[in-house]
């Protein structure tokens, strides 16, 4: 059952990514990005990360892509069709990068599978564990506070950037 769900969500992610990379209509690409991000959220669920998957759906699918669609509709003037670059040099670069990352990951995969451990511990629900880890001083309390300050900075900065030059001359 989990294998089946893996293939469903992996297919969703890969097809969405392909459409983002190669579709000519930017609105369609934005919606394909929604599908790709939802597929990744499903992969999190098959990995036992239920809270992370829900956060992915809320923040990415609900937040980031809506922001992207706003920007698309605010900045695209005459037509939503955009040209795909014809740079033939891109293909070997992407291929070589893919091979490099694949090989680098295979090194770690060999180590992990060399341990011979079969993962059977309880994994879900993870929400309580994540909340505890966020607020424990020897674990993730400092990054948690730092990212809170960062979000405040982002909030003020985004408003300042977007409104500059629009106040009364």
């Amino acid at each position, binding site marked *: 059952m989990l294998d089946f769900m*893996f293939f469903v969500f992996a297919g969703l992610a*890969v097809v969405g*990514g*392909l459409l*983002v*990379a190669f579709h000519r209509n*930017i609105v369609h690409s934005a919606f394909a990005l929604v599908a790709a*991000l939802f597929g990744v959220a499903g*992969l*999190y669920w098959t990995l*036992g990360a239920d*809270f*992370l998957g829900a956060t*992915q759906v809320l*923040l*990415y699918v609900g*937040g*980031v892509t809506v*922001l992207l669609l706003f*920007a698309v509709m*605010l*900045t695209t003037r005459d037509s939503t069709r*955009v040209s*795909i670059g014809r740079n033939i040099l*891109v293909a070997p*670069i992407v*291929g070589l*990068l*893919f091979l490099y*990352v*694949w090989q*680098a*990951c*295979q090194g*770690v*995969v060999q*180590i*992990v*599978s*060399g*341990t011979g*451990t*079969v*993962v*059977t*511990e*309880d*994994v879900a*629900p993870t929400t*309580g*564990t*994540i909340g*505890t*880890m*966020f607020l424990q001083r020897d674990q993730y309390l400092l*990054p948690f506070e730092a990212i809170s300050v960062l979000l405040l900075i*982002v909030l003020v900065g*985004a*408003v300042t*950037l977007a409104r500059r030059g629009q106040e009364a001359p």
Partner: protein
Amino acid sequence: MTLLLTLMAQASEAGGHAAAAGMQAVAGAAAAGAHGAAADGASAGAQAVVITGHAGQLTSYIAVSCVLFALGIATILTRRNVLYVLMGVELILNAANLNFVAFARFGGYGMDGQMVALFVVILAAAEAAIALAIVLRIFHDFGSIDITRTDSLRD
């Protein structure tokens, strides 16, 4: 952080038998710690879902992650619209997140991978908000969001 550092250190000497033995000890300790934390965090009466897996499945997740990464790079390199570049960055961040979660899951590292992935998701949302404010400014100043035409910082 310990997850990342040990993974990188072990990867540099990949394949060695001693490395595998050391990895097993580290993974065992991490799993034990995570299990204790989980027992503390989960309240009594919560029905725990047990998901079994083996390291063979790890390769499938890594394959999806690598494909997403390559597609993100292709998007960034071929498109001339700023918004497409942003979409490519989101794809790459998701690929990295998938790696974090999959390696932590099948390597027996407990919750650390998910924590790092959560921070990455939050940072990606912040990045998107700032980037879209900048995109609106670029459109206001240049009249277009073609990245080949935005070639000056001041007018």
